[in-house]
């Protein structure tokens, strides 16, 4: 074992640092540009050097680097350190682009991938519906081919960034007579049209990160379908294997924990700093056990991925591990806040206590629950762990329902 990255990688890191010193924050005339333009120009140079868009072929605007988990980790570390713009982290780059690269038609790749990678095109995801959450394949939004257009009617929900998005990638029922999973198609839909209405969904924290999207005779060209009719379910699943493990998530857990320790040092209990309180000390270290295990487990998975070996059942667990930690951190933070826990989550006084985050701890106390539900609730994760990780029988409802 060797936790340093080794000579070859440290050289790579040194080159990267030099590049970053010279290019970020913006220098000279570029420093005068609007932030967005400066970032775009920086991204272009970083891509040319192979630091960004690494998994994207050159002809679609990427840098087409051989997969190298360790280089990727170093890039994340160094970019984060100087807060340089990284790959556009929207749902378009994370979910749509890998899907198109694997399943899309050539013209679709050429048209959509480069502007999505550069951040020009923004996307939202039209999967969940009011009646279709965990049982996503029961979705009822219908698309009918009328002439050379799909005409879409239905409702989507939990649609992050729907207001800002230029397009939606959307699962629709196109073959109403086919069995559940076989009746779905994967469509790309322009958002700016009269048939689409976006309505924000206010969450318990008071903010509105999600939306409902109503589709009333919304239209999209007949060939804006990824894969064949009725293959939408498989197309949407293809993305899942592109999702990588927990390194990033563990970094967030450790940063939050640092914030929690700070909070414990600043808060009072019985007239003394809370961090001197035996119960708080026990709880902090108990929590740190989970956090370090998650962090080092990320190192282990990184190593196995870099060797081309499968990390095993741990890969099914990362999300639940990470959201469990998020909840426990937030719970201890609320206890440390004491009577400040009565305050408005967005009140001035509480902001800025979590490193790299604009939310207050009170907001995080609620938000951590949202994160635990997003992308599959804890109970759905437990099904996945039990079935794919431990080899227990599939849920018979999931196998047979209509």
């Amino acid at each position: 074992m060797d936790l340093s990255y080794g000579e070859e990688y440290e050289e790579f890191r040194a080159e990267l640092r030099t590049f970053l010193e010279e290019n970020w924050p913006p220098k000279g005339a570029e420093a005068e540009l609007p932030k967005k333009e400066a970032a775009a120009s920086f991204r272009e140079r970083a891509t040319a050097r192979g630091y960004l868009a690494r998994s994207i072929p050159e002809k679609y605007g990427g840098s087409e680097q051989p997969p190298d988990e360790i280089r990727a980790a170093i890039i994340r570390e160094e970019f984060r350190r100087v807060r340089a713009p990284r790959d556009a982290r929207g749902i378009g780059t994370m979910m749509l682009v890998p899907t198109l690269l694997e399943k899309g038609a050539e013209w679709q790749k050429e048209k959509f991938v480069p502007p999505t990678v550069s951040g020009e095109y923004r996307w939202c995801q039209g999967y969940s519906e009011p009646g279709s959450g965990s049982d996503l394949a029961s979705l009822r939004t219908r698309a009918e081919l009328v002439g050379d257009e799909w005409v879409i009617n239905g409702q989507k929900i939990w649609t992050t960034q729907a207001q800002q998005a230029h397009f939606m990638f959307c699962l629709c029922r196109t073959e109403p007579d086919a069995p559940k999973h076989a009746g779905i198609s994967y469509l790309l839909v322009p958002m700016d049209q009269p048939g689409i209405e976006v309505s924000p969904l206010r969450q318990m924290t008071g903010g509105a990160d999600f939306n409902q999207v109503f589709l009333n005779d919304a239209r999209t060209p007949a060939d804006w379908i990824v894969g064949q009719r009725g293959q939408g379910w498989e197309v949407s699943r293809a993305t899942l294997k592109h999702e990588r493990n927990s390194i990033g998530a563990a970094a967030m857990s450790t940063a939050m924990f640092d914030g929690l320790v700070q909070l414990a040092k600043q808060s009072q209990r019985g007239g003394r700093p809370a961090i001197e309180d035996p119960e708080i000390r026990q709880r902090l270290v108990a929590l740190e056990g989970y956090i370090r295990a998650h962090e080092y487990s990320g190192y282990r998975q990184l190593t196995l991925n870099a060797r081309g070996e499968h990390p095993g059942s741990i890969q099914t667990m990362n999300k639940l591990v990470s959201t469990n930690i998020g909840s426990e951190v937030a719970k201890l933070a609320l206890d440390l806040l004491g009577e400040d826990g009565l305050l408005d989550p967005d009140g001035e006084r509480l902001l800025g206590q979590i490193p790299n985050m604009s939310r207050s701890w009170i907001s995080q106390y609620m938000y951590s629950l949202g994160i635990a539900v997003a992308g599959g609730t804890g109970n759905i994760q437990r099904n996945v762990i039990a079935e794919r990780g431990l080899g227990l029988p599939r849920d018979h409802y999931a196998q047979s329902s209509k």
Partner: protein
Amino acid sequence: MNFGLSEEQRMLQETVRQFLENECAPPKLREIFEGETGFDPALWKGMVELGLAGLHVPEEHGGAGLQVLDLALVAETLGYGGAPGPFFGHALGTLALCLAASDSQKHKWLPRLATGSALATLALGEAGGAWQPEEWALPAGDTLSGTKCGVPYASLADVMVVGVAGGGLALVERESQGVEVTPVGGVDRSRRVDQVRFDGTPCEVLPDGKAAAPRVRDAGLVLLAADAFGAGSRLVDLSVEYAKTREQFGVTIGHFQALKHQLANMAVELEPSRALYWYAAHAFDQLPEQAERASALAKAHITERAMQIARDAVEAHGGIGFTWECDVQIWFKRVMFDRAYLGIPSVHRERAARLAGW
């Protein structure tokens, strides 16, 4: 960045696993577990032949010259197999001599310990949960008097390393006068412990004992964490296997979501902590400034997790899980040992808090 095992380390684990599967499968294991001494000479001899007695002894003294990480990987595998016998005490007693003994003491003992022709053990604990070096109270000069608790397989050991007042270490030969060994009825019958009373017993203070004592304790914490991880993994596997074979309502009970979720939770509680004990072992070998805290954290976290998993495993087995004949009890008690030995988790959480400067 390489946070993974080498080919040799994987082979070491695989060899030990195979050995235990062949030589110490549950019927045999149970026989030793239920027996008078908790010791099977043939099994220990087999382990010695695999090189486990001298894994970490320098090559110049007849060992394999490996590190605490390698010992910990073996400890995990022994925990998984529920292997009975004196590995733990022998490994730590021998490590103490490697770290603290004089050249002549090393020459005298290490070659014999490395080849298993002599057995070592370690006597640290004193009444009232005094496991830590700063808590030891036995005064040592040319002789030693007082009582040590929880000494693994003291009745079989040829040499004992004893923690003494001031946080140092002393060597006592088992055949010396004034050593009285009393077996303690321990909960974990796969690792027996004795109470040892010294009465004017001749001893040799180890020259580097004070520096080595906390290191030996830290290595002990790592080995206990690794053993508990192995035992916890076995408990998860036993429970999953049971869920795949036991039928109720016409299907295997693994079909039921309530049980699937309980088993998933057990796995989620345990699996990430494999890396936590690896890290603590790696820190012991390579990052000494982090070793003390990392070992405290690993021991506190993993033994606590494994203990809850053991309780869940009983529940997952239903009524049969509560019986003596069900193998769950063997690993349940294994974890009880790992959790309590060298101090319960809260002791080490407080140490970890202090070591962070909190």
